[in-house]
């Protein structure tokens, strides 16, 4: 475009206007430079506000209780010590609950992935009779749900209280994830599956040997989505688990902040050092519960982002 314009004399003026300098053309005006500075300041502010709570909690977890109570801990730990970490690590209930979280997350994620993949694959077949109804059945549940009480009655009467199934099964398919996967499957080239069919593979074979290997990226994204949501979940366990040693670590933390953890639970800790335990203990528990997510976050973040965008393409 610019070559055409530069040949003509009058075109130079046009060229001056539209020549892309930066992404959006025109020499930056003074007002725009001011804007850039203001923008940088605002964004820095957003970063600081977002990160501050994390750093603050970390600082608290490593500080001496006395400094916290005096309100002197902000970004840097005061009276550095890791005693509370040691205390919490020695609490067997914390570890039991931590292990529960891991187990629940793994089992739930596996079930969720299998169910979601199967259904999304079926939904992605445009020629399938009754496909519209199958989609509708899933999508309707996004806008209308049975509600807390009927769900509770159902889970209880199915005898799933105090079992892993109360956490795993009722959340086995997220409709949002389902639609993302469906959109992805629909974008796969049909010819590949046709060729496989001609070569004598049946539907199961096509799904297992052709479609799934081609969908590693989206399946990985879904694993992450599900794993994080199960790792973070607390309410179903809170509702359906009566026994302390069945709880996930999120409920352990909840009980800690709600002050509901009785003496028998933090007993070991409280005896060890009652004063030290209170405020830092919460910070340490937050840090240890968040740690796995914070550790994998930098590596998996872009998959999440692409996953969400994948869902957006469909709209």
């Amino acid at each position: 475009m610019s070559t055409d314009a530069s040949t003509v004399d009058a075109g130079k003026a046009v060229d001056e206007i539209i020549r892309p300098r930066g992404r959006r053309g025109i020499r930056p005006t003074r007002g725009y430079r001011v804007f850039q500075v203001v923008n940088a300041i605002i964004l820095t502010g957003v970063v600081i506000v977002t990160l501050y709570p994390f750093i603050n909690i970390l600082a608290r977890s490593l500080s001496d209780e006395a400094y916290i109570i005096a309100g002197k801990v902000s970004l840097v730990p005061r009276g550095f010590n890791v005693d509370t970490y040691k205390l919490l690590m020695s609490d067997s209930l914390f570890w039991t609950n931590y292990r529960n979280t891991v187990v629940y997350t793994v089992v739930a994620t596996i079930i969720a992935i299998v169910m979601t993949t199967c259904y999304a694959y079926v939904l992605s077949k445009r020629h399938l009779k009754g496909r519209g109804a199958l989609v509708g059945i899933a999508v309707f549940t996004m806008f209308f749900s049975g509600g807390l009480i009927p769900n509770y009655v159902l889970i209880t009467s199915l005898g799933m209280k105090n079992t892993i199934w109360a956490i795993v099964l009722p959340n086995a398919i997220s409709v949002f994830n389902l639609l993302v996967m469906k959109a992805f499957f629909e974008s796969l080239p049909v010819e590949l599956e046709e060729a496989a069919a001609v070569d004598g593979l049946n539907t199961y074979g096509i799904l297992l040997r052709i479609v799934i290997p081609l969908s590693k990226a989206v399946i990985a994204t879904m694993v992450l989505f599900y794993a994080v949501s199960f790792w973070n979940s607390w309410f179903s366990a809170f509702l359906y688990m009566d026994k302390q040693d069945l709880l996930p670590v999120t409920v352990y933390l909840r009980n800690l902040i709600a002050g509901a953890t009785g003496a028998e639970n933090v007993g070991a800790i409280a005896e060890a050092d009652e004063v030290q335990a209170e405020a830092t203990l919460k910070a340490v528990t937050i840090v240890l519960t968040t740690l796995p997510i914070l550790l994998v976050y930098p590596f998996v973040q872009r998959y999440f982002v692409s996953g969400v965008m994948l869902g957006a393409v469909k709209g």
Partner: protein
Amino acid sequence: MSAPSTADQAPRTRSPDRPEPGSTGRSRSRTARRGWRQAFRRDWQLYSLAILPLLFFLIFRYLPMIGNVIAFRRFQPGGNVLGEYWVGLRYVKMFLSDPTFWNVFTNTAVLGGLTLLVCFPLPIVLALLLNEVRARRLKRFVQSVSYLPHFLSIVIVAAMVMQLLSIDGTVNQLVRAAGGDAVPFLQQPEWFRTVYVSSELWQTLGWGTILYLAALTTIDENLYEAARIDGANRWRQTWHVTLPGIRPTMVTLLILNIGTFMAVGFEKVLLLYNPLTYPTADVISTYLFRMGFQSSNFSYAAAIGLFEAVIGLTLVLSANAISRRTVGTSLW
């Protein structure tokens, strides 16, 4: 996106015995029946993959919907799952004349409204600001950081809020540094809405920008060029090109937000509130929770829940219909 014609030739189709779409026979029901039988014979393996997921939806999503009949029946814990006998609209009348219900209804509307007002537009603003950043690295860094809170458990967010707002927390350090007295934020009803909405914003702001940023990349560069030739400055370009460009995304997300309007962060309120802050913090779902599980009044709670769900559904449907008529964008 493949055209429908190619999709018709998906694998497992044996074209010869497929009914041609145009040639519906004289008796439509008969063709339909034969169509189904053929579809099953051809695609039974596909249908078989849908069985478990369908069971899931049936048991864990649709059965509870039916379970809502206990809102119209007398339910006793341990008794019949669907209740003992019909009581008609007794529980509905009960909450309609329950002053606490109207209090929590107002709280729900106010919290939902404030959240919508704050947490819907600000991600758009942030996305526009991020879009103006030239330095790729900086942009990515800001994005990565702002997404982070989205990945935290609500329990952790609530715990962080409590730590930051505690008497010895950062916010009160600032208050004291400014010469004020420490405020027990979580014990005062007048603070709850601020606390709730700002924590919600903290957690959702960055994540909310993703879809807008994606939409921004799809806007045609030529439109900007045309606008510049017409003499539009940057602000005008934003107003006349960028914003209309992301309008479909905005409308879609607005409809979805309106749909969850009544279901304001149940879990977060449950974790953050306490009897002292009930006057502003108690929402329909938390009231329902207490009615159901602390007072064991299941039928009453179910009636409230059903009411809430119906409002939610109505809101989505009407928002969708309105936007289809006015802006031409809709969810379905």
